[in-house]
């Protein structure tokens, strides 16, 4: 079910980095074949393209111009969620592929989810699904770096996280840092952390600022744990803070003080700033709003992300977990479901995600923030379509999904298509480099700015989103 009209690259330079010529690089497909909009656009565009190419490109350009993101919220589903068991079910695939879950209709014609995501199915007219994601790396830290930077790890500094690029572009306007991680720590697996977590080649100044939100909405800032008995609630003013620091200076040597560096200065700075303190205070939300997200760390983390976006933070990455491992002592239930895939998706992961994502979507929509907030949800890869001998699924980088909403993204679309077993895309694969490029473009970081910062070289935009 492909629109092969866009199959060739005859008017595309893969390294243009620009916003116009990448239009021809993708095949367009939808769950029920080519989308009506894509068909109309294609039909309308082809004659014009054959002559000048301008009208259709102008339409895309106009849509893109309208689409502007003040903030990006990335829900990072760390560990690799199973695409078949969530948004790309294959009920007619053989027994050893399809999995045990029934399917339900969504509000998008021809698109079905599994029964594990009923709230999202009822809201599919507010977001679009890409089913043809593909990445280059099948290991967690490596694929994680590709997922949030667009590039493989290399010796030396890695490419910057998309959030770090936005942080550099926007700069720190007020007390709130421009790039937040909401979660328990830097995403990692048991052996090591993800290299692409922060500033990379742009420098550590653009690393994310880490904030943890408990299932009850209590905020903790790991940087502050370096000071005993100090919590956000105890820092009432700068004088309190300075007293605490004075005490610590006697205890620590100058090298240690230096190591705290910019991070703790930011922490204390924002905690003594009224606007920042307000952003962290989830009790300012109604009980109804707080409960709609669910009493889980991810749910309340999503609510915190919404408040940070509301306060003007341009990039917030909400990490599902710190560890990818889903079933390991002291692990925090990532999406890496090598065992108990079906049980954990059904009992824990999908109900939590379904609720939190839907609440965030509703919240952004109802508050009017969805117009200028980009909400993206994805992991670093998918999971093997063929069920393992342990009745679970392993890593699968060849086909997975991402979810897009807001900031001018056309909702209610199913973009890209996987084959009958969800093993490979049958439409043009969409890569992390393209997701990053699209995010940045919506943040106003165009080809020129990207070239100046030497980031996302060769990236193209996912035009089907507009």
């Amino acid at each position: 079910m492909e629109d092969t009209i866009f199959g060739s690259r005859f008017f595309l330079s893969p390294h243009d980095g620009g916003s116009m010529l990448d239009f021809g690089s993708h095949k367009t497909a939808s769950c029920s074949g080519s989308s009506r909009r894509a068909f109309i656009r294609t039909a309308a565009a082809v004659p014009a393209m054959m002559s000048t190419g301008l009208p259709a490109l102008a339409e895309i350009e106009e849509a893109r111009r309208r689409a502007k993101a003040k903030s990006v919220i990335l829900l990072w589903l760390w560990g690799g969620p199973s695409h078949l068991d969530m948004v790309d079910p294959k009920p007619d695939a053989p027994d050893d592929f399809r999995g045990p879950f029934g399917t339900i209709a969504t509000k998008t014609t021809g698109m079905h989810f599994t029964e594990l995501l009923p709230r999202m199915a009822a809201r599919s007219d507010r977001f679009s699904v890409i089913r043809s994601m593909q990445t280059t790396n099948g290991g967690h830290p490596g694929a994680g770096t590709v997922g949030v930077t667009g590039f493989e790890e290399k010796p030396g500094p890695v490419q910057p996280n998309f959030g770090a690029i936005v942080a550099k572009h926007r700069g720190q306007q007020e007390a709130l840092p421009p790039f937040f991680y909401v979660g328990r720590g830097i995403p990692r697996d048991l052996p090591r952390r993800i290299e692409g977590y922060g500033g990379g080649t742009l420098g550590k100044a653009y690393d994310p600022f880490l904030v943890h939100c408990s299932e009850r909405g209590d905020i903790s800032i790991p940087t502050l744990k370096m000071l005993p008995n100090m919590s956000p609630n105890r820092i009432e003013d700068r004088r309190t803070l300075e007293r605490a620091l004075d005490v610590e200076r006697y205890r620590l040597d100058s090298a240690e003080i230096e190591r705290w560096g910019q991070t703790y200065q930011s922490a204390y700075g924002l905690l003594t700033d009224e606007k920042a303190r307000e952003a962290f205070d989830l009790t300012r939300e109604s009980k109804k709003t707080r409960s709609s997200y669910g009493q889980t760390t991810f749910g309340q983390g999503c609510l915190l992300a919404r408040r940070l976006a509301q306060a003007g933070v341009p990039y917030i990455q909400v990490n599902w977990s710190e560890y990818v491992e889903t079933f390991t002592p002291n692990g925090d239930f990532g999406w890496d479901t090598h065992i108990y895939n079906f049980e954990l998706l059904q009992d824990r992961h999908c109900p939590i995600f379904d609720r939190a994502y839907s609440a965030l979507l509703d919240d952004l929509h109802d508050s009017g923030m969805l117009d200028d907030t980009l909400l993206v949800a994805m992991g670093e890869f998918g999971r093997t379509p063929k069920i393992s001998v342990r009745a679970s699924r392993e890593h699968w980088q060849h086909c997975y999904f991402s979810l897009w909403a807001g900031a001018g993204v056309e909702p209610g679309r199913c973009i890209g298509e996987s084959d009958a077993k969800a093993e490979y895309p049958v439409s043009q694969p969409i890569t992390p480099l393209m997701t990053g490029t699209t995010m940045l473009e919506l943040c106003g970081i165009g080809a020129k700015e990207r070239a100046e910062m030497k980031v996302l070289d060769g990236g193209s935009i996912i035009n089907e989103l507009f």
Partner: protein
Amino acid sequence: MSFSRRGAPAGCGVARSVDVTRSDAPTALIVLRFWCVMCSLLVTVSAFAGEPVQLTQDGSLKRDPRFIDGGRAVAYCYDETPALVRMMKISLIDRIPQPVFADAADKHHYEPAFSPNGKWISFTACTGNLSGKLVIRNLESGEQADITHKGRGGTRSPTFSPDSKRVIYAFAEKGPQQLWSVKTDGTDKRQLTTCSGVSNWPTFTPDGRTIVFSNSREKNYEIYSVGSDGSGERRLTNNTLMDIRPAVSPDGRKIAFVSTRTGNYDVFVMNIDGSDVQQITTSEERDDYPNWHPNGEQLVIVSERDGAFDLYLIDASQGRTVAGR
């Protein structure tokens, strides 16, 4: 399989009840027991009145509630932290949660099952990265058998046979997940089923002659019954969405289960032959993990209310008949 000894449980309800009912128990204890029974009665009467009785208050993610101590307490698992699942128990009387096991390091346990004779507990334990083993532990001595299989993987959903001699559980060793059986001392491990699809949540009828379980061969989980000798399999549910976690009532006449046929996880009860399906919960939020009270009239479930997960005691008889199976 290995055999080791662990610390005795922290006043595990099953063992404690034996002490209190001894004929030489002091008068004060008898009075205390009478008071406890009355309080327990009050709680169950409240549930009979149709109103769910909320047993826990913390709202943390919970799962796998099981009545213990003759129905006077409930064991369950909950997220103590984002990275720690602990097995707890709560008395219906004082409703103060406390760990099932005294040793704080005795953690990361799921899906507890208690033997009908009160002597054993079985559960799935997280023992390492991507490794879950089945534990069968003697509640009095602390001795335990660890049931493992080759390679990595995890056991699921243990349940005891009515004679308390064997544990049935689910495990995928070489392909589709099957039901297995093992003696409580860890010997005589056998694969019971050879089904396609995923098999899970075995439960016995009280006479031990029938096993009820879920299997996904029909493109989603359906509930089946089969003779304990493997004969006479019968499909009990028939719809396009999941029917999971069957639990046979103490009198063997009903099956409580969970289905998403209403659009979210709800609790249902049907006759043992699959007829007369009744919807017990109707909330738009999740209701899950039903377990029968020994009186056969009530269920303890995990309900999500306003985004918080807590244990509730509900009346199993006040359902609404629904069409189809």
